[in-house]
């Protein structure tokens, strides 16, 4: 393939993901509303919210430092970077090798660190509370995530998502018990990382329970918008990574336009199913007490490690 088409694909994909991400949010909200017998909002609601936020004037605390104002952009930037790298529709993007799974996880933790710092910047008790809880979730979720990814990496003998997807997608179907463990662990991590029930509830501002919301309490207008948008992208990307590892089928190569359509179709199907599953989970589970969360995540961590071990044990 030539580089130009590659770069074109690269940019297209990243823009595509950035634009489509809020739609996924909308879809999840609709599903949840349906499941809870509420009349569903428009699927475009997230877009309206963002637009509204962008129009408002930003209110910033007098004691805020530059870091506070920079953070939203950095979050958004990190997510956009990830969006550009993960194989959404096609594999073999030219810049994909710039970051393998480890680097991806690192990007997420970079974003997390900045948001936590920003939360501490104003010096309100809420910010501190949120930052502390976020890091608590993070330090357990991140290794669990890495371990699940490692399982896949061991199976495909590589840490670059491209190769993983490729090898997993084009292999003859076989059941990997290790992948089973990894899958469960990944799901738990996904819930935690994206602040969904049962770990966090994006819909409340209850100081006893809130984590992510507490961090961004001081943000408003365009900054808030960027953060929300970054959240949406993050959820989307997590799903993509999940697909890449566990249901990689249907993904296409760079330059293969027919395959691209097929890939798009499969992606839509996967996403909608995933949205429903997420909604189901959020409906059927109750929010944990805060200190259940570490246990929840350490379970995820253990599962992931177990997955890795079973890989070796089943292999020998």
């Amino acid at each position: 393939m030539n580089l130009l088409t590659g770069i074109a694909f690269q940019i297209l994909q990243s823009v595509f993901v950035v634009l489509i991400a809020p739609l996924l949010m909308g879809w999840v909200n609709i599903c949840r509303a349906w499941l809870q017998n509420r009349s569903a909002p428009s699927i475009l609601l997230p877009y309206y919210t963002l637009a509204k936020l962008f129009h408002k004037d930003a209110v910033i605390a007098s004691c805020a430092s530059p870091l506070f104002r920079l953070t939203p952009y950095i979050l958004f930037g990190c997510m956009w970077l990830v969006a550009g790298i993960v194989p959404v529709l096609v594999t073999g993007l030219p810049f994909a090798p710039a970051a393998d799974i480890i680097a991806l996880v690192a990007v997420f933790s970079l974003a997390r660190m900045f948001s936590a710092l920003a939360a501490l910047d104003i010096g309100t008790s809420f910010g501190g509370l949120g930052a502390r809880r976020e890091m608590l979730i993070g330090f357990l979720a991140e290794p669990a995530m890495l371990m699940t990814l490692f399982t896949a990496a061991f199976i495909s003998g590589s840490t670059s998502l491209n190769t993983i997807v490729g090898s997993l997608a084009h292999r003859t179907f076989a059941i990997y018990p290790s992948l089973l463990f990894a899958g469960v662990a990944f799901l738990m991590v996904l819930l935690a990382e994206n602040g969904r029930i049962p770990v966090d509830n994006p819909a409340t501002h209850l100081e006893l329970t809130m984590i992510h919301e507490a961090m961004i309490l001081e943000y408003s207008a365009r900054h808030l918008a960027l953060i929300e948008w970054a959240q949406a992208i993050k959820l989307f990307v997590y799903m993509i990574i999940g697909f890449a590892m566990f249901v990689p089928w249907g993904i296409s190569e760079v330059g293969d336009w027919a395959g691209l359509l097929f890939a798009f179709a499969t992606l839509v199907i996967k996403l909608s199913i995933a949205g429903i599953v997420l909604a189901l989970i959020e409906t059927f589970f109750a929010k944990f007490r805060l200190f259940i969360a570490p246990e929840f995540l350490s379970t995820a961590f253990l599962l992931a490690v177990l997955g890795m071990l079973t890989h070796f044990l089943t292999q020998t």
Partner: protein
Amino acid sequence: MFVPEFTLTGSLAVVLGWLAVGLLGLLRPQSVIFKQLLFALGALGGFVLSFLSFLALSGPAESLVLPLGLPDLPFHMRLDALSAFFLLLLGMVSAGISIFSISYFCGEEPRRFAFICLHYHFFLASMALVLLADDAYLFMVAWETMALTSYFLVTLDHKLAPIRSAGFIYLLIAHLGAIAILLSFGVLHGGHGDYTFDALRNAELSAFWTTVAFLLAFFGFGAKAGMLPLHVWLPEAHPAAPSPVSALMSGIMLKTAIYGMIRLIFDLIGDVRWEWGMVVLAIGTVTTLFGVLYALMQHDLKRLLAYHSVENIGIILLGLGMSMVFLGFGYPEAGALGLIAALYHTLNHAVFKSLLFLGAGSILHSTGLRNLNDMGGLIHSMPKTAFYFLIGALAISALPPLNGFVSEWLTFQTALQAPILGNGVVRSLVPLTAAALALAGALTAMCFVKVYGVAFLGQQRKPRHESQDTFHGGDAEHYERIGMAFLTACCFVLGLFPSAILLMLNRVAVLLNGAGLAPAALKSGWLWLVPTAPAQASYSPVIFLLVIVVVVLLTFILVRHFYHGRVRVSHPWGCGFPERTTRMQDTADAFGQPIRHVFGPVYLMTRHLPVPGEPSPRYSVKIEDRHWYWLYRPIAQLTEYVSAKVGLLQQGRVSVYLLYSFVALIALLVFVQ
């Protein structure tokens, strides 16, 4: 080059220069200019040294024999790739620290300054000699001189009892370690030849004796490096010293221990066994987790950094351990990867840990505070320092695109080579260390969110009171800033162009293991970092950084373009509370609380919780290191017990003394018959 042994003689000249500068300090300079000049010269030496060693890295090994030392064992010196790499580290980092010290120490009164200057530069010189030594005697001399000078620097403020005890513990453990190292040399020597490293290399030993030598060396150097359970001196001694010295100790001195380990195990002992690797891995894992978990509990900034040094030494040990395992099973490429990861992390840690210690020093200089719980909002009063410190914090938290991430990434990649191993158990154990590493990385991030958030962000917790008027309260001084800026730049360079460093380190690996990385790794070009093969793993920090920067700017412009940049400044939202005080912010201890909750059993915790209705409720928690209680105290008690028993010999009666000699005489007579 135009002089034979150019780089070696050059490095030697730098060493002598440092000694000279140290002696010049004894003139007890009054003028600030002169004081500054001395440290500037020290920094210059650092730069020269790094330049020379950079040349030496690509050149052939050079050696030299000085007419000093023992009559039949003169001082041997050798500058090969390994020494060159560590000298590069020494030169670079010490240069940054010396620049910082130009401002930092120029306020000292002459006598104290003379003392500092002398020991500071002798410290540098002895470290360089450790790296250059090519025989056991010179090595030991330089090694102990290093310990001694640093001890004097640690006990600079010897009027404070804790500092005295810190110095005592430090020198004691250092000395015990040195004895073990000496013993290890003795075992290696195997009874013939002399004590040059060549002779030690060539001595054949049985597997048992090599293992003994390995264990002794591992113990001895581990004591210096601060691995568990010999780390106890580290969190005591590093805070005690002036910040640049802490930076030297944590940034460079610990690395000389790593150097010694590599030199003895990989070079002198030679044939590495995978069992040793497992030992190193085990201890490395424990050290890593312990270090970071205890760091999270600290509220004294320098103590916290010291515990992080323990953690990072653990990470380095992980790399070494894996390398030894792979070598032991006969996979030189993977072994080289592990070794390179370890070396890379050594370099990175040297850079960012020194940077952080210097930052702590600037804070101390500016506010006189070391306790995080008294700081806050420093980003407003010292913005530049805040920036440098942020970079350091991101680097140590192993976040891309900075340098800390690269080496941890390489370590992960090494762990991911595990499937090639034959032994099933080992194969599944090695990745577990990766899990530990991941956990440690995340915890480090949390810890530095705490540090940065509590110290620099938020609002000042305590109003400045008159006792602080001696401190200027502003941003770091000129040269302090330059020093930190230099190290910050190093963080970026090391983070952005890893493949260049990889090539450098590959030489070391080739020197030690005879085999380097896979060829694919070496011709990946400057943009891509590829440890094994492009298909397996790759990372490109430059692209990474570019994309983020571009995207951030793009977003910024777009937002401005399509919407607006209007901002209203107001009070922070108090969530409906009537008034907010700065005491409502999270303290360092509060931030660590969830960790205390999750990892409770790890800590030896004495906590006082206020009971409801207490007139003046007070909350206090004290975290202690368990090792004092299960390891050090018993040993001390045993010694006390034995000496008490021995003391009974001397019980004052001349008759009994006569009896001793009488019995001794009779016994010997019987023995002779």
